[in-house]
């Protein structure tokens, strides 16, 4: 019977490559998911809006694995500023605050938000009558999971 040997360095290198590929797939899935969620929220009929600031500033972005979403957040905030500049229909203002979300080193996620000081009210008022951020996220959560699985599988094949 022939001896069979296993080079543990090759095995570990292979596992590392596999993990890297899966990680790339996760990133791609999350990016595709964020695009889908943002598009869903921009098209929502949950509210009508007055200034257009909520819809214009609606932004979904990926955080974790080196991404903090700061550039996306700045762009979303700027969209709200532009929509509300000169608008007199209500007293709402553009607002950018820290999400308060802290991820562990291996965690990643998608944040969907808008950049106005009345965003929270929109989600809560009248028992969530005009809530849109939560519903937009929830409606695509399963799809995002499938994106991640699909891209990860693709990377491994």
């Amino acid at each position, binding site marked *: 019977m022939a001896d069979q040997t296993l080079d543990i360095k090759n095995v570990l290198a292979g596992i590392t490559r596999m993990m890297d590929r899966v990680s790339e797939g996760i990133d791609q899935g999350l990016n595709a998911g964020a695009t889908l969620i943002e598009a869903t929220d921009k098209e929502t009929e949950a509210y009508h809006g007055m200034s257009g600031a909520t819809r214009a500033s609606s932004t979904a972005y990926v955080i974790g694995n080196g991404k903090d979403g700061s550039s996306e957040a700045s762009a979303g905030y700027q969209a709200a500023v532009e929509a509300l500049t000169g608008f007199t229909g209500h007293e709402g203002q553009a607002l950018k605050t820290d999400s308060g979300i802290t991820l562990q080193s291996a965690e990643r996620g998608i944040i969907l938000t808008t950049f106005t000081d009345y965003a*929270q*009210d929109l989600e*809560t*008022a*009248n*028992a*969530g*009558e005009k*809530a849109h951020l*939560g*519903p*937009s996220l*929830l*409606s695509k959560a*399963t799809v995002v999971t499938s994106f991640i699985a699909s891209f990860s599988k693709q990377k491994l094949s």
Partner: protein
Amino acid sequence: MALDIVSATTSFFNTLATDSAGSAVRAQLVTYGSSASSIVPADFLKKYNNASPMPVRPLIAYRGSVITGNSRTVNEMFVKWFIYDDEQSQYYRINTLIPLIVAAYPENAIPHAYIEYSGASQEAPDPAYQMPVRSLTFVIKNRQ
């Protein structure tokens, strides 16, 4: 078997409003001076005014949220209970009701479906009513 939106919604609401599974919630409402008549659909809240005051607090309001699936099958229904209380009571009674409501929905509470509790919102007042409120989100999933 596909999830029936109407029967799932009715079952979910009635679990708290009338069924035995929600009896602990209703008993707690009575303890607080409220009753089962304070369990209402969310849009009912808008019809109350000075001439027709809101149900006694704490009150629990139901709102259906998004439904996922395709043209043939409903995969998931997201539903919410909003628990309101008077400003002077803040969140104590609301927080006491949360575990009772969650316990009323075991996984198999609705025929042909799975139910999952997916969490509560933060403590924040409803700006429309200036009342403390927290929402509880449940997912009703198609049992395939």
